[in-house]
């Protein structure tokens, strides 16, 4: 039979440990339930603390640093000079090709482009899972936007309050039949009409929400059907209850 010390040591080392024996102990121990709740809150803060804002370096930095690094640090004694020159030239070309392709692939600074850029910063959110975010956590993320999400509309597997264009906005991932769908509640971004976008492997829509800004809904992957995304967007929109 597991004791409290064993349970707490295991959880402090690995809070996501879902071992059946640990769960059984938790179900019978109010003190450890309180401890698990303390740890859950701490873990949420730790996760947010580690996600420091790292703006991607400027294009020049992307180009110059790799090129410097790409130069051979010392000539190899068996390399004839023309081979070294070719190697350096190839490195320059490679570095430039990477930088230019990254630059060309970057969208303009439209709202859709910023949404897509934000997606690239949170790749872990896209996991296909059946583990829901605890309801209090979801409410906490949504509370500042004065909105609630009816859980009957789908399983929310990720909820985070993200810095986006100078505001904290709810970023949710809803699991659907066609895979995970990201929803961003953009109360500060008013829109006249809906817009579709297809950028960097993400396909989605941003729809205006009267009096509450807009809602970005997107899926990723080459097989994504925009009609499916729009249907999900409509379902999500109808599942939001605005409290102000």
């Amino acid at each position, binding site marked *: 039979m597991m004791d*409290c*010390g064993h349970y*707490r*040591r295991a959880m*402090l*080392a*690995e809070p996501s440990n879902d071992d059946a024996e640990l769960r059984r102990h938790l179900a019978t121990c109010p*003190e450890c339930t*309180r*401890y698990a709740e*303390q740890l859950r809150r*701490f*873990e949420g*803060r*730790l*996760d*947010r*603390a*580690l*996600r*420091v*804002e*790292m703006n*991607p*370096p400027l294009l020049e*930095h*992307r180009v110059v*640093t*790799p090129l410097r*690094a*790409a130069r051979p640090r010392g000539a190899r004694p068996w390399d004839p000079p023309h081979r070294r020159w070719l190697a350096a030239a190839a490195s320059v070309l*490679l*570095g430039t090709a*990477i930088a230019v*392709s*990254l630059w060309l*692939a970057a969208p303009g600074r439209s709202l859709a482009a910023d949404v897509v850029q934000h997606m*690239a*910063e*949170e*790749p*872990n959110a896209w996991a296909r899972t059946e583990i829901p975010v605890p309801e209090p956590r979801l409410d906490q993320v949504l509370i500042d936007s004065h909105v609630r999400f009816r859980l009957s509309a789908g399983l929310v597997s990720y909820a985070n309050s993200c810095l986006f264009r100078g505001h904290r906005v709810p970023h949710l991932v809803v699991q659907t039949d066609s895979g995970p769908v990201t929803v961003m509640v953009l109360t500060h971004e008013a829109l006249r009409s809906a817009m579709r976008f297809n950028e*960097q*492997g993400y396909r989605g829509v941003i729809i205006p929400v009267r009096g509450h800004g807009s809602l970005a809904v997107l899926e990723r992957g080459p097989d994504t059907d925009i009609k499916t995304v729009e249907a999900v967007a409509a379902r999500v929109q109808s599942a939001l209850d605005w409290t102000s």
Partner: protein
Amino acid sequence: MKDPVGGNQRRARFQSLCQSLRPDLLRFAFWLARDRALAEDVVQETMLRAWKAQDSLLDESAAKPWFLTIIRREYARSFERKRFVTVDVEELIAKEEPMLAAADDQELVELRAAMFKLPGEYREPLVMQVLMGLSTAEIAAELGLSNAAVLTRLFRARKQLRVMCGEDTSLDPEE
């Protein structure tokens, strides 16, 4: 004969993989080095090396540990090149204050400063677990430790962090 179309697709996929992982790799390097400029240099070098060695990544699902290995090697190389000797944590914190203070939540700022003070042997597996989502076995493989040793380090990491942050530790277990 080589397949240029397949090669282009593969390169495009690899590029997309690099782009999607880069923000978290930068964060990982930042917590490893506790220096933003150094973290950026390390990740740039890592990307270039990864690009050249992309054929050795046989399974995309293993990309994260693969990149982490390169980052850790690059970080170690930066030590060899620059011959860092001593580290004053308070100086590091002061230098990176804009990064640490970026959050609008004082508790997060304190937690970030505490992370800076955490010894590397505890900080690194903790970042791998929490930020990068690695399993205990993956961390153990990366650090060349047993699973039990990794769990001990993770346990001590959180225990020390909680004390440094003034958390209620009355229910925390003894080692």
